[in-house]
């Protein structure tokens, strides 16, 4: 991509954003394999669309998601979330530690209509032997590796058509990987708004501050997509950044 094309892209986005406010934002969930992208997508859908619907399955084997999946028409409604939290508050055993609704009255009126795109994990290497270590047969492992390479290309292509990105990083891992740096560099060059979600804060070894220190120019929200911890902070940030 040349500098001129990149600048043109940024100005075109700015122009469109000013003149044509989006009715629906296409939000891509990006990140390395096993960061929890599908778990986060499921969490958002369960909260705001259908509590029985899953966009995909999560396993410990990397590259479980090998095709980008789009779930259209999700309405993030912080007023609805406030009511849900009040309901949780009366529960003796709340499943999350997010506590009562932290929204101000103004925030509680915020709504965001979006399509979620759950993308395959970005990687620079895919070795079928790694899948065999999880017990897969050789033929199945090779097939999975082939599909995973196609999935990475698909995730990259989707960047052309995305309005905002939730970039997931595993808070128990070193965030300073080349994959994370490349994703952020490309989002910055294209002028795509990004929120970094430091996932897996329910684990004892999680260090979300390490992610904030590595990428100080971006908003970092610590969450547990699995347990639902601190999701309200992420929803608040989404309604603010992606509208």
């Amino acid at each position, binding site marked *: 991509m040349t500098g001129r094309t990149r600048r043109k892209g940024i100005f075109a986005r700015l122009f469109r954003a000013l003149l044509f406010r989006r009715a629906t934002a296409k939000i891509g969930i990006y990140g390395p394999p096993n960061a929890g992208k599908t778990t986060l997508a499921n969490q958002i859908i369960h909260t705001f669309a259908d509590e029985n619907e899953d966009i995909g399955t999560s396993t410990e084997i990397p590259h479980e998601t090998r095709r980008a999946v789009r779930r259209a028409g999700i309405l993030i409604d912080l007023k609805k979330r406030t009511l849900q939290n009040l309901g949780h508050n009366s529960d003796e055993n709340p499943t999350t530690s997010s506590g009562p609704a932290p929204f101000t009255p103004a925030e509680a009126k915020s709504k965001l209509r979006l399509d979620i795109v759950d993308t395959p994990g970005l990687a620079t*290497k*895919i070795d079928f032997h790694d899948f065999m270590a999880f017990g897969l047969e050789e033929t199945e492992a090779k097939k999975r590796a082939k599909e995973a390479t196609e999935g990475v290309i698909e995730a990259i292509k989707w960047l052309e058509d995305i309005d905002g990105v939730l970039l997931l990083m595993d808070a128990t891992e*070193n965030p300073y990987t080349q994959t994370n740096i490349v994703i952020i560099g490309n989002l*910055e060059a294209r002028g795509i708004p990004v929120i970094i979600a430091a996932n897996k804060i329910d684990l004892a070894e999680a260090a979300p501050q390490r992610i904030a220190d590595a990428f100080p120019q971006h908003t970092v929200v610590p969450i547990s997509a699995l347990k639902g911890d601190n999701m309200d902070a992420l929803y608040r940030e989404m309604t603010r950044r992606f509208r």
Partner: protein
Amino acid sequence: MSEIKMDLISADKINAMSSMEKLRFVLDGVREGNIVILEGGLTPEEQMQLIELTMTEIGEEFPGIEISGYPAKRGLFNLRKKTRLTVIGPANVMRTIKKDKDLISTIVSAV
């Protein structure tokens, strides 16, 4: 004793190439089993294109690449980002063990 070749490419040589020439040059070198070190490095966009190109070539003999680089720095008047050194090698030969904004530590071992 097995040997691993390292190609250290000057910024002048790499800047004289188009983006696609750069990517092909790097990937051809890596597929031959070499470690390629680029003075001046690749932009994030070029690195993403390199990942995309790599994915089309992954197979039983070639599991992909290991890539490491210092993050770009703000250049003149804080407007343009200046890329720095990038190291690329075959994923089954090179492994990054430590990395921060000014340090890359890798292990290179013969297959």
